[in-house]
């Protein structure tokens, strides 16, 4: 067995003038969940298409389970399960017919690998005679995952499986992925939702075709460079605008019901309290807070832009 399930080395890809990927490198371990996190247009889909042998990179090498994505595309297509963005299902076929079809073209049957999909499929099995086009977003997502899993792939490539799906379905989906990991399947998944990073073993933050950082979510958060404080008060709108122009603060971003303020150098809680008082705010709460992946992402975006 190769050391890593997926190895990507110096991959670049352009569409005409547009650089979709610039010198991307990383490895994915066996049976881990690897998250590729970044906004639309960051190059996630392009990278996944290269991994599934659908696109040839301009330069660089990538292997999946030891198979080169360009030369050994036939083997790659046997061992990967791929779920493209926009769940690619046949909307005029029923749930069961879709699953049957994907099982057949991979030369297997539903029965043979039912154990793999059971936990997911039981949730949609009551609707197995329903056409896929009439399913809700969450159910389509589950069916698409079942279809990608039915041939027992070694590597599962999921392109934005949670986009456009509500918070409940998203949570359930990640619970399913955690269970699949136990079955010795390597999962590489892309998402624009930063809060999903913590559910991965390793994540790569990607923006404009470049990887900004790769590590475990905990280490990325640990590496956050500045002291960070959580500030909240009654007039959030004004507070945010003023904190953005606070010379001792590096950045101020709204996070839910509070504002995350990153301070420069040795400045800290006291300076924030003074500043808000000076601006006439009352009942302001200031607390140190741990960074989130989203904080890290924004900090990295800013340093990248400054370069």
């Amino acid at each position, binding site marked *: 067995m190769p050391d890593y399930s997926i190895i990507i080395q110096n991959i670049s890809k352009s569409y005409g003038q547009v650089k979709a990927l610039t010198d991307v490198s990383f490895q994915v371990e066996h049976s881990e969940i690897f998250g590729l996190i*970044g*906004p*639309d*247009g*960051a190059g996630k889909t392009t990278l996944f298409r290269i991994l599934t042998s659908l696109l040839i990179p301009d330069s660089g090498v990538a292997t999946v389970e030891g198979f080169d994505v360009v030369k050994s595309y036939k083997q790659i297509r046997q061992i990967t399960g791929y779920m493209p963005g926009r769940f690619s299902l046949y909307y005029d076929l029923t749930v069961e017919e879709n699953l049957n079809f994907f099982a057949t073209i991979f030369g297997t049957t539903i029965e043979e690998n039912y154990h793999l999909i059971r936990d997911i499929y039981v949730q949609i099995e009551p609707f197995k005679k329903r056409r896929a086009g009439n399913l*809700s*977003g*969450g159910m389509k997502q589950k069916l698409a995952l079942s279809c990608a899993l039915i041939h027992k792939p070694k590597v599962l490539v999921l392109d*934005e499986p949670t*986009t*456009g*799906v*509500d*918070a*409940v*379905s*998203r*949570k359930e989906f990640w619970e399913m992925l955690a269970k699949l990991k136990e079955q010795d399947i390597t999962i590489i998944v892309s998402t*624009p*939702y*930063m*809060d999903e990073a913590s559910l991965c073993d390793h994540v790569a933050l990607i*923006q404009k075709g470049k990887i900004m950082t790769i590590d475990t979510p905990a280490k990325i958060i640990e590496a956050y460079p500045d002291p960070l404080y959580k500030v909240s008060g009654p007039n959030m*709108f004004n507070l945010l605008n003023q904190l953005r122009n606070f010379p001792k603060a590096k950045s101020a*971003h*709204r*996070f*839910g*019901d509070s504002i995350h303020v990153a301070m420069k150098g040795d400045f800290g809680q006291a300076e924030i309290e003074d500043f808000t008082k000076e601006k006439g705010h009352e009942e302001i709460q200031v607390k140190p807070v741990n960074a989130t992946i*989203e904080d890290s*992402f*924004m900090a990295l*975006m*800013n340093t990248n832009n400054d370069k």
Partner: protein
Amino acid sequence: MTNKPIIKVENLVKKFGNFVANDHLNFEVYEGEIFGFLGANGAGKTTAIRILCGLSTPTSGNLNVAGFDIYKQTELIKRNIGYMSQKFSLYENLTLKENIRFYAGIYGLSSKEINKRMDNLLETLKIGDLRDKLIGSLPLGWKQKLAFSVAIFHRPRIVFLDEPTGGVDPITRRQFWDLIYQAANDGITIFVTTHYMDEAEYCDRVSIMVDGRIEALDTPAGLKKTYKVSNMDEVFLKLARAS
């Protein structure tokens, strides 16, 4: 923000055959507020928005949008609202200027007025150099921000935003919300749906739809207090999972 309702919904029912998409909805949206309209997929949000925009007729119920009756005055409603969604954006093969001229033209603004407002907009956003750029050549973040600016270009009283920030990077997402706040400050009522629960916190009031019904409607703080949780994510999960 006032407590004057600009959208009044009483007993809104919408059925498709036997399927009840909206089951006796009752709510009011106040003038100038940012109203978050949340719900799981298939809970009936899109159906309700389509009705409020005058694109679809309810099965029954009394509805008033911007002072106009939803059954008889849909044309007047359409003049007074703006709409933007993640899917519906600007024309990619037209320049920014052409897009603005087109949309503003639909609402009958004069050329002089269009030019004045366009200069204003480009100056506020500091994007004078984008005026003659094709929309297709701009990054997604800008497209979304511009789509919003165009949606409120005719100064509607209410703007409906259907998942406006899907797939955008976190910084752009916050810039987008700056624009929303700006518009709300200018007196435009914001009616917004989102899958980002932190964005729910940015709303003045939030309603959560489950299976065609509004299960909860309050300020984010009020909802968190009622359900004894620390963030909106948990409020949503508690409500949507209970079903």
